[in-house]
């Protein structure tokens, strides 16, 4: 089972990294989301893979699973969720203010400044 989980984490991380390096904001947002999924599964497996074991101490339990990674993953999910929502809003704001959805939205600004300075020179 370990190798399947390891493969899943690896593929998600690789896809996430690829998407984060793209030039437009939406793939970057998707990439960050994939990265956070990969991180969550990774954190989860760091408590070792156990199936059907109790996390809370009880007299009937014979073996336990580690509850701490579950708490960590829960926190990480909430934070990643909030951050993704913020990033999507920011990407939309950048799209409307910069006039394009390039992460490095400078092209448009530089072009406009060039036009402005040409106009000034014309005056």
């Amino acid at each position, binding site marked *: 089972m370990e190798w399947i989980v390891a493969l899943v984490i690896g593929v998600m991380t690789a896809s996430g990294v690829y998407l984060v390096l793209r030039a437009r904001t939406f793939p970057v947002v998707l990439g960050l989301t994939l990265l*956070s999924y990969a991180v969550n599964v990774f954190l989860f497996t760091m408590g070792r893979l156990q199936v059907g074991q109790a996390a809370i101490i009880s007299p009937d339990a014979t073996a336990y699973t580690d509850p701490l*990674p579950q708490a960590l993953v829960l926190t990480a999910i909430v*934070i990643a969720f909030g951050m993704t929502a913020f*990033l999507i809003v920011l990407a939309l704001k*950048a799209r409307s203010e*910069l006039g394009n959805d390039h992460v490095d939205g400078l092209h448009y*600004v530089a072009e406009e400044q060039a036009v402005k300075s040409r106009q000034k020179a014309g005056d």
Partner: protein
Amino acid sequence: MSSVWPVLPVLLPLIGGIALLFCRLGGLQLQRSVSLLFTAGLIILTLKTLSVAVTEGHQVYLLGNWLAPFGIVLVLDQLSALMVLLTALLSMFALLYAIAQDTDKQGEDFHTLFQIQLFGLNGAFLTGDLFNLFVFFEVLLLASYGLLLHGGGRLRTKGGLHYVVINLVGSSLFLFAVGTLYGVLGTLNMADLADKMATVSADDQGIVAAAALLLLVVFGIKAAIFPLYLWLPGAYANTSAAVAALFAIMTKVGLYAIIRVHGTLFGEQAGPLAGLHTDLLLWLGMLTLILAVFGVFAARSLKEQAAFLILASVATLLVGIGIDNSAALSASLYYLVHSTLIGGAMFLLADLVARGRGSYADKLRSAPAMARAIMMGSLFLVSAIAIAGMPPLSGFFGKVLILDSAIGHPLQSWIFTAVLLGSLLMMIALARSGSILFYQVNEESNNDGGTINTKATAVMISLLLLSPLLVVAAGPVTALTEQIAQQLADSQSYINAVLSQSAVTGK
């Protein structure tokens, strides 16, 4: 007995932030007064926590009364007390400036975000748990995203987008590193991690070292170390001056985290893994310093130049941490206090200049003379002397102390060359921008800038006055930083203080 001192500086701004949400109904004036009240309260509180930390040693607070290493602990030692006090001081000036220039009128909830920013910063300085450090990083980052974008504007949005994306990537890496450390060592408490570091089996040492270096990358993004600094100039140069001044402490959070996490985990007790980061930091520091100085030269506006000067100060501090002896750490802490305050003052000055020059803003081009040009020019001269590290101001003392501690280091000649060459080039670049801004007056057109805002200028001058004050008080301040460096070198006492903390029994 669990001490309450570590938790109070975290709680106060949190309560302030929530209280300010309710003050929205009372209008801006009420919000300003409440925000000032809480920030002033934080200064008084942090002064008290510093005196407690100095006289009574490590203070540990067990959250939820769970014993370390099972629960989360907040730890107050002299270093965290100094950082919290520095944050409170800087934030007071940033807040006064924001009020004087009406920065808080440009959008909603400036003051709430400001207090939550302080909450995140203080939490990051006081926590003793690696995962909790991640949570506080996210708190301070989310507040900083809000503050950075406050007021809007397209360049601000663009710089902000880069800042947010790189920090989100950093957060993912942080979690990978935390997960790896937990998987190998089974704990996240920093004291417990440090305690178990010596028992790591030879097979796992490579994994732990990889996790540690991954953490270094994360803190390197926060601190803006080469090659992870490219987001900083764009983000800092385009935000409002008060926010940029407050952000002078943000890069220092990354440096603090390196001192705290790597210094504690990979101290002398770590066995074969001890000190795996120090040589790397020294080289990266020197490289960052030279590139930052090139940036200072190439900057097209005064704010951009101030952003690169912040970067240069971070690099100098990295060199100090990388020298890795007690004297160097003490010197670095002195320089850290200086560079945070004066870096902040530089952003405020750049904003005053930009407002005085009207449509020319702070671009390094010749323009009509601004109002009160002689006073502004003199302020620029004093700031430049302080930040470039010339006598008689505090930057000089910080650099001399760092260089003094480097004598005898195997890389001594490299360190001297990098720091001194960096200072010289910085001075030339600052002299150049000073002469463009204040000497090369363009008489053809009229100045369309506003008059000088007296209140804002007074705030900037009082922040700048802390530099001569740091020189006058150099004796007590260096005595304190030496004591801090000694306490940090003795990581065993930190481990003992945290792990031997007993819970409150409730009877």
